[in-house]
């Protein structure tokens, strides 16, 4: 007799005719139970979502293309799968392998595929760590990426796709983020935004087929693309240079983040060889002093040495960026720190005569990783308007000058005699004779300005000691908390026990029959007694 059984019949409840949104109007099955107004709203939202998903899907497809491309490259390294046509290519890879192995140690983000073997060794050594890192990264990724962008873990840990999974994953996170930013940015431009997106994607696809081109041709392709794009934008924005530049910056960021791994230090060039040569050269020049270069910077002033350290950090950081403009920004930041150091020392604005020697000094101190590759990459793929006339371009040019100077540097350029130069280069003598005695003085509190590197080491050690102490305190606190919890639990248990003992729970089994506890029983008349009649 419940109401439910009634509803199962033909009866239609009034509430079922109303809009599902609960707005009070009548709904319609054709509008999925909504009223016309709510339906329109819902439809709009769905459409919007659809648009967004379309973009996301486009992105995903792009990524899949890239993944497929990467794995097809990976296959080449397996002899059984190597087609004959690729045989020559493999041989050249073989030849460069030795150099590449070294590079792998320094580079967080180099190309994928062909050189799998040497990298596996590296992986084995740090296996446990890597795995831990992977898990962490996956967790982070889960937190920050949209569900549709997550690939399944099995797909990700697929063997042999890339030499170092955790690294490539990190860069793919960055690629995702850049793509998302790009799409977000273009949304504000509406229709042209979509056109730009389409063009960029088509270009990237196109470039994937051109991986056999030489570096100059690759550069030409990208530069032509920039040129065409900015010409079109110029027409669209009616000559507003600033707006064009703003879009072009985003275009560069999007395109170059994606092309990076194929066009940075490509195998068709000797960039890598030059990197190593420069690295060795700088190492061999470790003895060059501030005085020999006439650097107008006094590192005894703490503020100055602080700026010097920052400048060194900035120029080293350049290698970690993928977008040419971001690399340029590192050079600019480095230069600004140099200017600060000069301004504090000399109390006048730095001229080129001050700046260039100081930059040379910084480069010698920093020995930035893959310096030549980075310079080539910026030259080939940066938006030209920045490189030619802009401030960034000036600093970049000076960096090129610094490298050229370091390559050609001889006794004369340091005002040394040829003999002295030879002796220093061969390591037979050191111009800093007094330094070994100075080193021990540069103790923790001494702040020995003689060697900024050493001071830095001591500062870092101090920091580490501080961190260790804090960690110890945290651990102590945690242990305290743990024992507090344990003793609290024990005390609660004890109390409960005490109470239980004080007031023992006695469960009295009901003595009588069913209605024994019926209070009303008393009021009932006594049960009828059988009356016996004799007669």
């Amino acid at each position: 007799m419940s109401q439910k059984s009634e509803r199962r019949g033909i009866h239609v409840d009034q509430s079922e005719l109303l809009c599902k949104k609960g707005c009070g109007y009548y709904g319609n099955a054709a509008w999925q139970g909504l009223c016309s107004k709510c339906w329109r709203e819902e439809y709009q939202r769905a459409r919007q979502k659809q648009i967004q998903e379309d973009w996301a899907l486009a992105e995903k497809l792009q990524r899949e293309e890239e993944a497929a491309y990467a794995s097809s490259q990976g296959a080449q390294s397996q002899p059984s799968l190597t087609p004959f046509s690729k045989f020559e290519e493999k041989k050249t890879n073989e030849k460069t392998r030795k150099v590449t192995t070294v590079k792998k140690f320094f580079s967080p983000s180099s190309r994928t595929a062909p050189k799998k073997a040497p990298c596996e060794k590296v992986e084995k050594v740090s296996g446990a760590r890597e795995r831990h890192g992977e898990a962490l990264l996956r967790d982070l990724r889960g937190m920050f990426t949209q569900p549709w962008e997550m690939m399944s873990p099995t797909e990700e840990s697929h063997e042999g796709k890339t030499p170092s999974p955790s690294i490539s994953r990190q860069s793919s996170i960055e690629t995702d983020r850049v793509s998302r930013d790009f799409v977000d940015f273009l949304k504000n431009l509406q229709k042209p935004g979509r056109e730009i997106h389409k063009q960029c994607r088509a270009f990237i696809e196109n470039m994937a087929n051109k991986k056999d081109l030489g570096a100059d041709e690759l550069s030409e392709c990208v530069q032509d693309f920039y040129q065409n794009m900015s010409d079109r934008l110029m027409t669209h924005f009616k000559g507003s240079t600033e707006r064009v530049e703003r879009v072009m910056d985003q275009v560069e960021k999007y395109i170059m983040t994606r092309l990076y791994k194929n066009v940075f230090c490509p195998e068709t060039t000797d960039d890598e060889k030059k990197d190593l040569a420069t690295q060795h050269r700088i190492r061999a020049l470790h003895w060059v002093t501030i005085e020999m270069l006439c650097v107008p910077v006094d590192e005894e002033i703490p503020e100055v040495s602080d700026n010097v350290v920052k400048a060194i950090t900035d120029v080293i950081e350049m290698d970690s960026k993928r977008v040419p403009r971001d690399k340029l920004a590192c050079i600019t930041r480095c230069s600004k720190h140099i200017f600060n150091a000069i301004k504090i020392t000399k109390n006048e604005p730095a001229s080129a005569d001050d700046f260039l020697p100081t930059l040379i000094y910084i480069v010698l101190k920093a020995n930035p990783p893959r310096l030549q590759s980075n310079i080539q990459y910026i030259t080939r793929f940066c938006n030209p308007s920045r490189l030619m006339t802009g401030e960034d371009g000036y600093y970049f040019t000076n960096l090129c000058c610094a490298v050229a100077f370091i390559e050609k540097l001889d006794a004369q350029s340091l005002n040394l005699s040829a003999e002295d130069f030879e002796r220093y280069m061969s390591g037979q003598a050191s111009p800093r004779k007094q330094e070994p005695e100075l080193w021990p003085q540069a103790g923790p509190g001494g702040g020995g300005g003689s060697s900024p590197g050493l001071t830095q080491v001591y500062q870092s050690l101090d920091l580490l000691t501080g961190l260790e102490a804090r960690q110890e305190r945290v651990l102590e606190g945690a242990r305290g908390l743990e024992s507090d919890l344990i003793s609290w639990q024990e005390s609660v248990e004890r109390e409960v026990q005490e109470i239980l003992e004080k007031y023992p729970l006695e469960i009295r089994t009901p003595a009588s029959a069913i209605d024994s506890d019926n209070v009303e029983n008393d009021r009932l008349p006594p049960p009828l007694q059988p009356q016996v009649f004799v007669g």
Partner: protein
Amino acid sequence: MAASGAGSGSKTYSFKVVLLGEGCVGKTSLVLRYCENKFNDKHITTLQASFLTKKLNIGGKRVNLAIWDTAGQERFHALGPIYYRDSNGAILVYDVTDEDSFQKVKNWVKELRKMLGNEICLCIVGNKIDLEKERNVSVQEAEQYAESVGAKHYHSSAKLNKGIEELFLDLCKRMMETAQADVRAKGNGASQSGMSRRGVQIIDDEPQAAMAAGGCCSSA
């Protein structure tokens, strides 16, 4: 600054100009005087004087001038080509009291003409004319030399702020002419991409014919 014309042309020229010359002839002093109107001033606000910019309006055309200081010491001489690559103009400075510095200018001129041809506008500047009494380079010789190599000659004093505005304004006008001639040449078939890759950006929403007149520079 230059006459702010009512011209409707919305072009922006971007020019790169390098400063070349021996150390101590006054290169840095010249730009600081031009861009900050300061000389030997301890209270200069700019952090650096190696890359300075100036915005000009010449005959209604906007000009962004980027002035690149170069390291003048002899040991950096070989780096010159890296600095002056893609520049539209070069200011070659010597010290009128120093004959040697004038010889250095001659070397630079040779090198620039060899590397960049006639694309680049050259200015030869005899600085420190406030030290006229100690002059070691004859005016006539310097001016004749400049003319012989297709350069313009100027005299200046960063100390007294003499001849500097004129020098830069003149140079800008000549660079504009060169750029326009370039556009006209490129207009006949060649692609424009080479143009902007050389560093000159001409944003042009006027018909080509309008600028072919070439007379805009005589206005200021």
